[in-house]
């Protein structure tokens, strides 16, 4: 239970005799948030809102120029002895109403004070703008009048009939998308291609303008005024925006949710129409534009708008839906409460909400949105820095200042000087230093398991290509593929009719030459010599041919397993000389041929490995031990197997101009490791897998710094 501010205030005399009241034209509306009643005061002139509790409203509503504040206060106290606000609360309340410009008073104000306030507000706005460089806003014009004028036409769409129309169109659009999903996917690869950027941006502007008008029209339809429209620089990309905060005053939360969702409703509608246009046009500008609109309207809606973790529509919808205004601040307060209450032992710390469910919501939201922001923004930073290094650095600096330096300084100041902590300061500082110290120890001193992995393929240590030396068509398989064979064992027989003919002709030619030789020895001795040399030549040829014929029977050159998955299909097929007929692999010893990317090479060379093991894809549960390994010194650019490259489903980027998909973009290092065979694993030549190098344990922080530096070096040559 929190302590109520004291009933009596020492400053009471300053307002006791004032005659003040609420400014004319200030609307009061009842709202309920999570079952609690609130009164929202709205100043229509400045579009400012102020939310107060009904008890406070009882007091404020009674204020009138005919009575002094003191009289009204006493009246309230007499009526509601326990709930009426105390003097201190009244002073707080009135000052806040005054700051919200909701008060009317008969005295001339201290104009210097007003001016000072104005200057302060200006300064604060400017500061906020700089701290929020990624989402700078520039208000430009007041669209309200235009909205009112066009409402008779547009407003008709915001109705049950409009909802039905929307459902039909979106349904049709969805059908188109599903029918042509594969084409859709194909085109998506070129969305960020340089040639498409202009169309993409055009689509973005169109969609976002419609999106904003969606908010504006919905808001206007339900009676809220929309006075500001302008341009927001989202990551330096100009995008329209509109201020529909007047929906804040709506009594029904569903209306508030609807205004929040209006942008997305419109976008999905547009996306559906664009999908239909895209499907029904031939490639060309219109086709492409439609595609881009569709892309923007759907992707941005999903990534940005729906997502409550960023401060876009989804956030406000969630906030309205949960009935927790200022969700993000409340979430921060809640996190702060946890820390103050339980880590710092501040018994007076107050949770911003009462219910356990709200606490859960706030906590979850606080943590996830914090993490999410970091992830998204580092992504954006890297993305921007890739194309515009200087701006990237400036942005990174800005982010570092606004997210690291400023909060850190603030936190230190809070720790050392905040009066709230006065009593628990030593504990707070103790806990913080403990956490910080243990973090440092954990990161800088405690060694953590350190390993990295590399892709590679399993290869038999001894293996041979089975190749035919003689062309021929496959006649029969003499051994079954996959079986173990001995050296010299016949594997398959080829048949080469031409060879046979040639052989026959060569034999005939020998017979003929021998016959002629015999004849010449008897009749013309002068012919003996040429014929003898001819015989010699023909015999040689015959020998060759016979060898060739012999080689039509292909034999294993070594002991091993003959692997040739497709050989059965080869029967009867003609093979030219040197065709691959599978591999002869020695199953007794294998080695793993791994490719190490450059970032990891340093670690590979610098430290001694504690342990190395290989896991094959598909049988990752069993690790294979390694006897020893050998790093092949010198960079390489040709992968041992196409399976390791992008083209073959691997992780290593390969050059797009290489049809084989083996030439890598970046050089890599090769490691050959002798694998211990295992009974559970069928060792097969060419099987891809990962080798895991376990390095000596090393603390995390040096490792992170090293990878960050490598990242910077690789990307920006810094």
């Amino acid at each position, binding site marked *: 239970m929190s302590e*109520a501010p004291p009933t009596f205030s020492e400053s009471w*005399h300053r*307002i006791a005799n004032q005659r003040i009241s609420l400014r004319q034209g200030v609307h009061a509306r009842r709202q309920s948030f999570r079952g609690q009643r609130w009164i929202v005061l709205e100043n229509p002139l400045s579009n400012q809102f102020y939310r107060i509790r009904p008890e406070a409203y009882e007091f404020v509503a009674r204020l009138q120029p005919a009575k002094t504040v003191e009289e009204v206060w006493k009246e309230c106290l007499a009526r509601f002895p326990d709930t009426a606000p105390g003097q201190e609360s009244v002073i707080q309340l009135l000052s806040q109403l005054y700051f919200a410009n909701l008060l009317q*008073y008969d*005295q*001339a104000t201290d104009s*210097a004070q007003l001016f000072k306030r104005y200057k302060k507000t200006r300064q604060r706005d400017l500061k906020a703008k700089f701290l929020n460089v990624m989402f700078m806003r520039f208000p430009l014009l007041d669209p309200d009048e235009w909205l009112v004028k066009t409402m008779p036409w547009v407003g008709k769409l915001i109705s049950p009939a409009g909802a039905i129309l929307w459902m039909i169109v979106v349904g049709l659009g969805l059908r188109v998308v599903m029918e042509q999903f594969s084409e859709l996917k194909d085109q998506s690869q070129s969305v960020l291609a340089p040639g498409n950027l202009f169309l993409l941006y055009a689509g973005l502007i169109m969609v976002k303008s419609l999106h904003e008008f969606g908010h504006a029209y919905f808001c206007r339809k339900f009676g809220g005024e929309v006075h500001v429209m302008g341009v927001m620089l989202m990551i330096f990309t100009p995008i329209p925006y509109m201020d529909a905060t007047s929906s804040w005053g709506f009594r029904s939360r569903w209306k508030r949710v609807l205004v929040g969702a209006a942008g997305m409703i419109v976008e999905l509608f547009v996306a559906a129409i664009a999908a239909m246009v895209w499907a029904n046009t031939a490639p060309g500008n219109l086709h492409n534009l439609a595609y881009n609109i569709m892309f923007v309207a759907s992707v941005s809606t999903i990534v940005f708008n729906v997502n409550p973790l960023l401060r876009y529509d989804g956030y406000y919808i969630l906030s309205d839906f949960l009935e927790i205004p200022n969700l993000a601040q409340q979430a921060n307060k809640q996190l702060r409460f946890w820390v103050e209450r339980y880590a710092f032992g501040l018994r007076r710390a107050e949770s911003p909400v009462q219910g356990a469910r709200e606490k859960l919501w706030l906590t979850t939201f606080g943590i996830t949105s914090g993490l999410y922001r970091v992830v998204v923004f580092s992504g954006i930073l890297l993305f921007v820095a890739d194309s515009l290094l200087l701006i990237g650095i400036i942005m990174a600096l800005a982010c570092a200042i606004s997210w690291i330096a400023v909060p850190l300084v603030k936190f230190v100041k809070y720790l050392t000087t905040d009066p709230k902590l006065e009593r628990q300061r030593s504990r707070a500082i103790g806990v913080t230093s403990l956490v910080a110290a243990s973090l440092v120890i954990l990161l800088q001193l405690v060694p953590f398991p350190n390993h990295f992995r590399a892709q590679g393929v399993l290869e038999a240590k001894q293996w041979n290509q089975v190749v035919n030396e003689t062309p021929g068509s496959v006649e029969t398989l003499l051994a079954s593929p996959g079986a173990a064979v001995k050296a010299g064992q016949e594997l398959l027989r080829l048949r080469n009719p031409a060879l046979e003919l040639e052989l026959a002709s060569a034999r005939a030619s020998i017979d003929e030459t021998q016959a002629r030789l015999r004849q010449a020895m008897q009749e013309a001795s002068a012919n003996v010599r040429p014929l003898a040399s001819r015989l010699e030549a023909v015999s040689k040829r015959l020998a060759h041919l016979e060898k060739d014929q012999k080689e039509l029977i292909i034999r294993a050159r070594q002991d091993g397993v003959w692997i040739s998955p497709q050989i059965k299909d080869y029967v009867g097929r003609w093979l030219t000389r040197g065709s691959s007929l599978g591999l002869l692999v020695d199953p007794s010893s294998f080695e793993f041929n791994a490719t190490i990317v450059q970032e990891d090479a340093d670690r590979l060379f610098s430290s001694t490995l504690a342990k190395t093991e290989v896991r094959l894809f598909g049988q990752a549960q069993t690790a294979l031990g390694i006897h020893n390994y050998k790093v092949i010194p010198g960079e390489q650019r040709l992968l041992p197997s196409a399976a390791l490259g992008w083209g073959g489903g691997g992780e290593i980027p390969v050059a797009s101009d290489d049809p084989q998909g083996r030439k890598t973009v970046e050089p890599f290092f090769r490691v050959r490791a002798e694998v211990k065979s295992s009974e559970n694993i069928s060792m097969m030549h060419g099987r891809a897998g990962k080798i895991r190098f376990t390095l000596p344990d090393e603390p995390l922080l040096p490792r992170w710094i090293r990878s960050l530096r490598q990242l910077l070096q690789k990307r920006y040559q810094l």
Partner: protein
Amino acid sequence: MQTPTQFYRRTQFKAPAVIHKGLDGLVNRWIGYYQRRDAIVKTWWGKVEQVEALASECKDLGERALRERLSGFLDTYRRGGRNLDNALIPALAAIREASDRHLGMRPFQVQILSAIALHNGYLTEMATGEGKTLTAGLVAVLGGWTRHPCHIVTVNDYLVHRDATWLQALYEFCGIRVGYVTGPMKPEERRQGYNADITYTTSKELLADFLRDGISVGEMREPSRRLVKQMLRPQLTAQEGLVMRGLHTVIVDEADSVLIDEAVTPLIISTQKENQSLNEVVGIAHTICDPLVPHVDYEVNARYREVELTKEGRKKIEDRCSALPGIWRGTSRRTELIKQALNAREFFLKGKQYVIVDDKVVIVDEFTGRPMPQRTWRQGMHQAIEAKELLPISPPSETIARMSFQRFFRLFHKVCGMTGTASEATEEFWQIYGMPVVRIPTNKPCVRKQMPDRVFPDEDSKWVAIADEIERVHRAGRPVLVGTRSVAASEKLAALLEGRTLHFQLLNALRHVEEASIISVAGETAHITIATNMAGRGTDIKLGKGIAERGGLHVIATERHESGRVDRQLFGRSARQGDPGSSQAFVSAADELLKRFLPAALQSRLAAAVRQNLPGKELLARIAFRIAQSNAQRIAFKQRQAVQRADTWLEEALSFAGGGNN
């Protein structure tokens, strides 16, 4: 007939300077270091030498020539502008000569030095008895010549009257009218006092008159608007009857007391209004609290002066309140009232925070030990204490105007001040008032023997040792001044000495009438004087005949104060103006100061060390008290800052309720 400018200046005040935070604060701090640099004192010494060089020339001037020269300066200063800087040195030389001739006192070089520092808006730390009054007079002449209102703030009415009349001859010779304002004066006399070129007064009178003027001006306070109004309808503003001429320069004597110790206690102009319901409620709250037991029903936090109800206590209260009407049904109001009653019981102690005189609760000032019959605690608390003491409950006072001294002194265009003890609060003077502190060397070296603190394990042994020590010094024929922190403590010591049949004088909030007569003989042979902090600041104890040869006055502090400055003020009663003297503090490991401001772990360690009589216990105690005092000062500074921040916020937040300065 006043000129429009004079009319305008009556309500034209400086907007209090912004108190810098964050990075600005850091830069501001550096500026402060620069302003206090040693080199600045050196350049001033150069100027002092130039003044000295002019001395013989001034001496040779005839009476009439000197007067003419002085009236020439009057014109120069009145016109203002750039040549004032050049005029400073000859002007000081002339004033010095005038002082020599008409007061019979020739300002020492250190006093000239201090005057130059004051003129530059510095706060000078001058050892006690170094002639602050005359120094202020030198600067006041310069201020008076400008004809801007120049106020000299001293500690009490007696000093106001004494200083104004003492220096009158000098002022008159310099062509300046001097006035003074004291408590009992009527508005017409006050107006006369303020109409003079320079006005002696106390800070309380000054602020009270300022607030009353503010009330009579009413809502139209902005000077330009007021001027227009006066031009249109002169009869309206003629009725206002303001007493002051406005605020411009102020020279604050005992600046640390006025600007720091008492700074956040606001001065309140109030009327008493009967409030039957409050009286009843306070009575009921007292009866409900009566049976509550500490540590069972509530916990007491001594350091922060707070009580926290336990579950059991809440239940008891719940049971007792169920039969009571209206306001007692809800939790929040009820808890507030009961906590107030418990606060009254735990933290407001008879003989310490207040005394009872004629069935009335009279507040005793924490720093000066003086009774403050005009003062009341904030609404309800005073009544709660009356309920506790079973006294008739007085009607609550209703505030009409209210302002803290801190805020008030920031409205002056020029603030400067003097004190014997400023160095502890250097940073605060700079941050809040923009006054750099410099230390002025003494004219004659100080020969006070400051003996090391004596440490005791508990209160009883300490008091016995104090009584022994008093007796010893008494037998030696030296006068002794014993300072106690509270009325109760002074009474306790008095009883102890009575038991030893020693003759002594007792000076505390209950016996303050004889103050002047007690102090006048306190320096005589073998006199024993027991006093609360009353006999601190500003008390001048003259040594009797032959005392100096015996070693002068011996001062005993029976406890250390939260602020080291108050301790130093007490010690400063001895060894004044080159006289001999000695002082010593008696402390115990069970002193309240330690309990409140020393971390518990250190407390027990110190207590153990003292009990076992370990060799380093004196050093340990000195460190412990140093830590406790600096903790106490830090917390006090934080509180003053918070008050100041709340003031500023209120000013901004309630500016719709008339831009007032109160």
